């Protein structure tokens, strides 16, 4: 989907608000939101559905609201869409009564949970990958309507495969709850191929791209 999230290469943004050291969270609510995202999920949720939900935010909201507020809207909309909460419950802001107490995690338990969150997205792949390291490829020219991970700035561009990572879960399928794994490659693009002669010769952009995004050159 050619949504507002696809920001790579877009021009007109101002200077970067450079910082060198930061607290983990800029505000309390950011910390709460991150904690909620790590603990409160529904069976309905995958990383790719989560990302697609963010991509489906109103474009002007996507561009203007803080990062963790996007996560909050994604969580709320995801729960409403899955039938876990109703819109009315969300808009009422939650009740006062704390009903069910779930087990409390200690900080040590959290650290263990973070470690256990080391997820392997690779899967066995019975076929041969279509490409090998060193192959020259060109990317697909067109976007697809759903969630996908080929940025628009790298569409219709020539590149070279520099690494093969086996088959990884394919986001274009996973968001639809179809678990398919396809070969994943790192592809190197010369900056001038992507941006034209204004770019510095010798600079490059590396992208990890799934096989269906690539065509033989």
């Amino acid at each position, binding site marked *: 989907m050619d949504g507002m999230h696809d*920001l790579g290469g877009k021009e007109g943004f101002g200077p970067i608000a450079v910082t060198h050291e930061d607290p983990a*969270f800029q505000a309390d609510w950011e910390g709460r939101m991150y904690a909620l995202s790590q*603990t409160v999920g529904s069976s309905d949720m995958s990383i790719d559905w989560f990302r697609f939900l963010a991509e489906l935010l109103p474009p002007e909201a996507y561009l203007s609201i803080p990062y963790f507020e996007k996560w909050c809207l994604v969580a709320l909309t995801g729960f409403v869409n899955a039938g876990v909460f109703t819109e009315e419950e*969300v808009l009422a802001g939650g009740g006062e009564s704390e009903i069910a107490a779930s*087990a409390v*995690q200690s900080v040590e338990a959290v650290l263990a949970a973070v470690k256990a*969150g080391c997820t392997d997205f690779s899967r066995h792949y019975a076929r041969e990958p279509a490409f090998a390291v060193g192959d020259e490829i060109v990317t697909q020219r067109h976007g697809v309507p759903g969630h996908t991970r080929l940025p628009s700035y790298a569409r219709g561009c020539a590149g070279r495969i520099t690494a093969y990572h086996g088959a990884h879960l394919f986001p274009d399928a996973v968001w639809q709850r179809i678990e398919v794994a396809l070969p994943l490659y790192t592809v190197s693009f010369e900056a001038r191929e*992507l941006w034209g002669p204004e770019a*510095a010769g010798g*600079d490059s952009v590396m992208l990890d791209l799934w096989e269906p995004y690539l065509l033989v050159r």
Partner: protein
Amino acid sequence: MSQDDKRDRAKVAEIHRKLHSHLPPDPALRVKALESLAIERGFVARETLDAWVEAYSERIGPKRGARVVARAWIDPAYRARLLQNATEAIADFGFEGNATGHLKAVENSADLHNLVVCTLCSCYPFSLLGMSPGWYKSAAYRARAVREPRAVLAEFGVDLSAEVAVRVWDSTAELRYLVLPQRPAGTEGWDEERLAALVTRNAMIGTDRDLSAGGD
């Protein structure tokens, strides 16, 4: 595309629009609504949320990555393992976890500089570097890092000569990247802890380059 109604783009967009326009504009109140509902339903205990905030505020952060970098500087065998399979190498410290299941270390050299971004969301190796900085998540960084990395680096105070090539890693799949900066001169014989103190978070993202042994 699936016609499954639970995956209906138009329906989801409509819920988004409704919630965004009717919820109070303050993000703190929006998160409070989610927290209240989640606690009410017994999905999580408030104290568990406190523990997650504490873990990421006090225990997980860029100091982890700095130790990994320092060890790679000291121990050539470790450096080789890190470049070969970073997820396994950081497990020596127990730093593997959220978003580092497929970690790659990419090494700077005298004629190569690496820079990491995620243009499509803001992917980041949380268990190794902690929470990402605000600028990493900004539209400006996401838009500009791939197109004009040298201008972006200059804003961070990194002025690269034309002889140094820039390699930007746009980490839009599940691979995450750790930049292995060059060891600063004047640190011969330093131990891991002392070296780790020199490694900045930004150097591990690639928005910092020339680390300094200090004292000048």
